[in-house]
């Protein structure tokens, strides 16, 4: 369904000066903060709970629920803002940081106020120079204007927001890796449990980690109420959500659409969105939620952009990144390209991920180079099975974080649906013995069953 709901967080994108304090104030800026400061903090938390705002960073955990996790009586608590956006296919947090930094700052302030977070660290991906500059300027202006820092708007609410930035490592987007990085360490994730950030996070203290887009929704929720937000969307997926659609479509772009009701077909085919597959080609496959997600196909087009439905079909909306592949796509190469990413970005902590991802990459490279053997394909799957037993969805894992199992998605997707393309590369029929149990890896008939 193509909804006519109005955007929430991309409303200022049309202005050239959308990133300035002047424009922000002229368009209702910091009203959400004022509204929040008029309420007791717990009421703000309740508002966000009633909004059912799902985290937009990838895991899709409800923000209001997460905010309730820090153990009582343990202080201080910190906020870490995840602006490390690096999942292939994902482009939205950078846009929010470059084009509407004050909206993000306002969201951060609301979160700190509500949960009693003593200091906030806004961690921007290292490669995003402009986003860093825009945030630095916005913070300097907001401090000067009394929105950030000591006694905000004359109240006893005081918090510093520190701009901090990375230096190129995808895994630092994972929240515990992010915390390690922010502590000046190698960004290697910690095991959960026991290291759930909300309990044991930055400097071992309770820490809320939220994504840029998640927080950018807060000013609107604060001004308009959680109910208004929850009135948008469907099922567990409420409000509006940004999706970046890239690849073989006529109008690739970032669209803020009503969550839960808009379908993949709407987004890919509707003229107001992507306007269909490019050059009149047929759709071969699409990735519904970033490189880590199992691929979807033609038969999934009419699924709504709804976390539950997509999960049941065997994949995820992840970071809101949809990558479309047309019928001419060489899936073996596409698969290799994604696997190469995970091999490069493995932090190296867990043996199966460190060794497995790079081994898989080497095998795929060899296959593409024409030195593949038919048995290699089954071996690919068996290696996947050793990283993510059962090749299922949601994945089981022998690793600490989900990066390792992520490498399995493209391989299982490509092999399960395009075995003949592998056969063409390895020059012979391919037998596979390893079971792939993920719903998205099954043939259309059984997937629909």
């Amino acid at each position, binding site marked *: 369904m193509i909804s006519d709901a109005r955007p929430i967080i991309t409303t200022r994108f049309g202005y050239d000066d959308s990133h300035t304090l002047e424009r922000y104030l002229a368009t209702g800026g910091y009203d959400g903060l004022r509204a929040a400061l008029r309420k007791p903090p717990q009421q703000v938390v309740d508002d966000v709970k009633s909004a059912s705002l799902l985290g937009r960073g990838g895991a899709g955990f409800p923000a209001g629920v997460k905010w309730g996790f820090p153990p009582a009586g343990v202080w201080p608590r910190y906020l870490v803002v995840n602006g490390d956006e690096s999942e292939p296919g994902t482009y939205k947090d950078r846009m929010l940081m470059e084009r509407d930094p004050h909206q993000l700052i306002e969201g951060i302030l609301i979160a700190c106020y509500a949960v009693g977070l003593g200091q906030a660290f806004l961690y921007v991906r290292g490669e995003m120079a402009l986003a860093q500059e825009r945030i630095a300027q916005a913070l300097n202006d907001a401090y000067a204007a009394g929105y950030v820092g000591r006694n905000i708007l004359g109240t006893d609410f005081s918090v510093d927001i520190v701009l901090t930035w990375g230096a190129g490592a995808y895994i630092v987007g994972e929240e515990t890796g992010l915390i390690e990085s922010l502590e000046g360490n190698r960004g290697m994730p910690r095991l959960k449990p026991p290291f759930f950030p909300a309990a044991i996070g930055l400097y071992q203290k309770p820490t809320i980690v939220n994504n840029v887009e998640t927080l950018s929704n807060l000013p609107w929720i604060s001004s308009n109420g959680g109910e208004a937000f929850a009135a948008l969307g469907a099922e567990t997926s409420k409000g509006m959500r940004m999706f970046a659609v890239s690849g073989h479509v006529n109008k690739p772009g970032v669209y803020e659409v009503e969550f839960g009701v808009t379908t993949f077909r709407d987004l890919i085919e509707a003229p107001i969105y992507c306007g269909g597959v490019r050059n009149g080609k047929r759709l071969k496959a699409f990735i519904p939620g970033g490189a880590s997600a199992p691929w979807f196909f033609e038969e999934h087009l009419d699924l709504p952009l709804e976390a539950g439905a997509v999960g049941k079909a065997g994949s995820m909306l992840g970071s809101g990144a949809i990558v479309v592949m047309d019928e001419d796509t060489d899936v073996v190469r596409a698969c290799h390209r994604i696997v190469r990413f995970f091999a490069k970005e493995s932090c190296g902590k867990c*043996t199966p991920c460190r060794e497995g991802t790079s081994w898989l990459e080497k095998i795929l490279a060899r296959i593409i180079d024409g030195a593949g053997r038919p048995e290699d394909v089954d071996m690919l799957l068996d290696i996947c099975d*050793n990283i993510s037993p059962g090749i299922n969805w949601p994945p089981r894992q022998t690793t600490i974080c989900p990066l390792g199992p992520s490498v399995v998605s493209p391989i299982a997707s490509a092999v399960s649906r395009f075995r003949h393309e592998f056969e063409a590369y390895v020059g012979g029929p391919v037998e596979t013995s390893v079971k792939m149990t993920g719903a998205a890896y099954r043939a259309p008939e059984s997937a629909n069953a």
Partner: protein
Amino acid sequence: MPELSVSLAHEPAQETVELTINGRAVSAPKGQLVIEAAEKHGVFIPRFCYHPRMNPVGMCRMCIVDIDTGRGPTLQPACMIEVAPDMKVDTESPATRKSQDGVLEFLLINHPLDCPVCDKGGECPLQDNAYAYGPGESRFVEEKRHFEKPVAISNLVHLDRERCILCDRCTRFANEVAGDPLISFINRGSQTEVNTFPDHPFASYFSGNTVQICPVGALLARPFRFKARPWDLDKVESTCTSCAVGCRVTIEVSRNHVLRYQGVDVDPVNWGWLCDKGRFDFEAIESDERLSEPLIRKQGDSDPDGELIAATWSEALTTAADAIGRADAKSVGVVGGARLTNEAAYAWAKLAKGVIGTDNVDAQLGDGLPGEVAVGLPAATIDDVCAEGSIVIVATGDLKEELPVLFLRLRDAVINRNVKVVELTTTTTSLSSLATMSLRHRPGEVHLAMAALVGFGRDVGNISAILDGDVLAARRLVADSAVNAIIGRPSVAESADAAVEAAAVLLEAKPDARFVVSLRRANVRGALDLGLAPGLLPGRVALDAGREWFAARWPKVPSERGLDTAGILNAAADGRIDVLVLLGADPLNDFPDRALAERALAGARTVVAVDTFVNESVSKADVVLAAAGYAEVSGTTTNIEGRVSRLRQKVTPPGTSRPDWMLAAELAYRLGIDLELESVEGIWREIEAVSAVHAGITEELLESPAGDDGVLVPLRPEVAAAAEGTHVQITGVDGTQPASEELSSAQEQEASGSEPSGEETPEEAAADAAEEGAARQAEAEADDARPATVAFARNAPYQSPVVDSYSLRLATTRKLFDDGTLVQHSPSLAGIAAVSHLVANSYDLNRLGVAEGDVVKVTSPQGSATFEAHSSDVVPRGTAALVVNQRGGDPSPLIDVTTAVTEIRVESV
């Protein structure tokens, strides 16, 4: 005997958790990791990164097993997950098996197949696990990861990055345990390697531990490289005597050569760690310069002083005995004895005091604390000091340099056990940054600092003795708490009086205070306990108190208190010593006043040396008796806590050299007396029978599993309690023992070596042995005749000299790697010893017009010497520091042992 405050046996009852492991219901203490709980119940879960003495990281994923906490089985790392009620652990499920298989295959794909030339081959956990849990064959056809083959990351350690499996053990050890994060993971993902910063070597005193805990052959000890295949090594458990901490080790030998020591994890002492000096100075055993036969000085035509020439044993022993026999008892002095085993120390005490009748006997070289003080202070153990929440006053030299593994324990206590250290020191030490409070005082004024810290009203004036540090905050910290203290001689440029007074001040303020007396040398504590000190008889008994008891057991007992080393050397210098026995001593280098030592060696009519090397002092002797050394003799040793543990022989001594105790017996025999000591075991039986404090510590107890960790002297109630059938938590046997594969063979051997008769389990044997020990102790207690032990008594109140503002006051410090015999005869260590400089505060050097690096002449009332001067704020104003026993300058010409402090003037030359 004071009431003992710590009980290993009766820890507060722990909450337990019921769970099932492989279908078997078990209970485990709350908070225990699954990997530990499983092991305790006989289920070994393979692992690489997990090490029981370090924080788990869950990296290698080898320990993954199926764990069901109610939501169905999931694969979880057993090294990270704590036991929980009703948890079901399955270490044999198909999923577990597949995962183990997969992890091993992953680890092997980039691991070189150079096992045949790898030092680790045969004791390699990767090999073992691959054999037990691995896939059998590799499907990997790609090229393996390549790195330059072994690179030297320090003088002692080589790193082969191709073999590394990135388990984070070495790097965690360096960072968490040693506090020397000089190695790190570098780069990312499959390109990750372990390495140092360019040109910053892994210069940690503890680097050898990383080699031991490396689960593959990635880290290699240079002294062991290509020396032997592990399966050719014959191992035995023993105790390190490179310093007085007494770390447990295995001595590993091939074809009668000692090739390696490895640390053994004993709970109360070293937790498996060793310092590099202790680990690698075995090379000295193998030195070509070892003494292998007795020597006698013979005058030649060209050489009026004569020359030491090989002699027969009978010639040498007769010459020595004749000299002793001719001498009046009071003109015989015996210096040294810390190198000896307890048994040898007893034999020599019996010879000197019971046969010759001299009390001029001193195992220390004027560099420690008086014997009565060392044995008389109420004792604390390392565990007492490091117990959760303990407050420790440390007033001694730099522990990292002097007693390195005690430093590691203390470091762990501060970081992980909420232990607070209040340090009293002149110069900044390795402990300063860990201390809650580090207070600075002038040399010779530690007692004033102590008074300022714990003293009563009248001592508040002493606050001026604190040059730096928040003394008021420190006072608050210790005010209402029980404290333990580590106390020792801070510097040999000051007399022992200030330290003794400091102990007295502390005890006066806090009568419950307990002490670890930080004497440094090998078995110095055992030597003191067994009477190698003036005024003491074996068993921590004063001469007068024990005279009657020993008169009934020994041929003689000295009639009056004798001289300490300084006294003996002075007497010798004055020509009042006929026979000076150097019992493993090198006073020229180890006594603080070298000039006096020189005069003494020249003044003594006959110098008899008993040693393993011809050190500088020995080269001046008239008769040299070649002694068998470490690993060449068996017996026991006593550490700083008073813990007796086993020393074992594993190689034959060079040439005809003999155990020290035998030399004592031979000399006695030639003096016409039978010492009645015929074997090491026999000597121990005699010690146990005559000593006031060794009662109950029987050979059987020491050989039982309860003795594996050593046995504290006097026997503690909780060990004795075993006799009454109470459950005794025998540390090191049921659980705290390392699971580490690397030690298991040593343990096996140890276990089988000490296998008690019949089908007894080790626990039963321990209980039996303890029972017997307790009975003996009870007997001894009933038998009032055993003399009373020495209690600490304050000397005459000590006054430190007033500050001479024209001078700097000298403090000496030590370095682990020094110019001493062991280090210098260990080729791998010899080069590490640094060079000594005069270090003073920049303020003072500026004032004196001395520039950084200038050569300065340093003058004291005693003498002068030249040094290179460097400025550093580790030394407070008004003081200067010099390292003893180090190249670059010797402070001993400046030191007069009869003065309280050493005031020096410094001028550029």
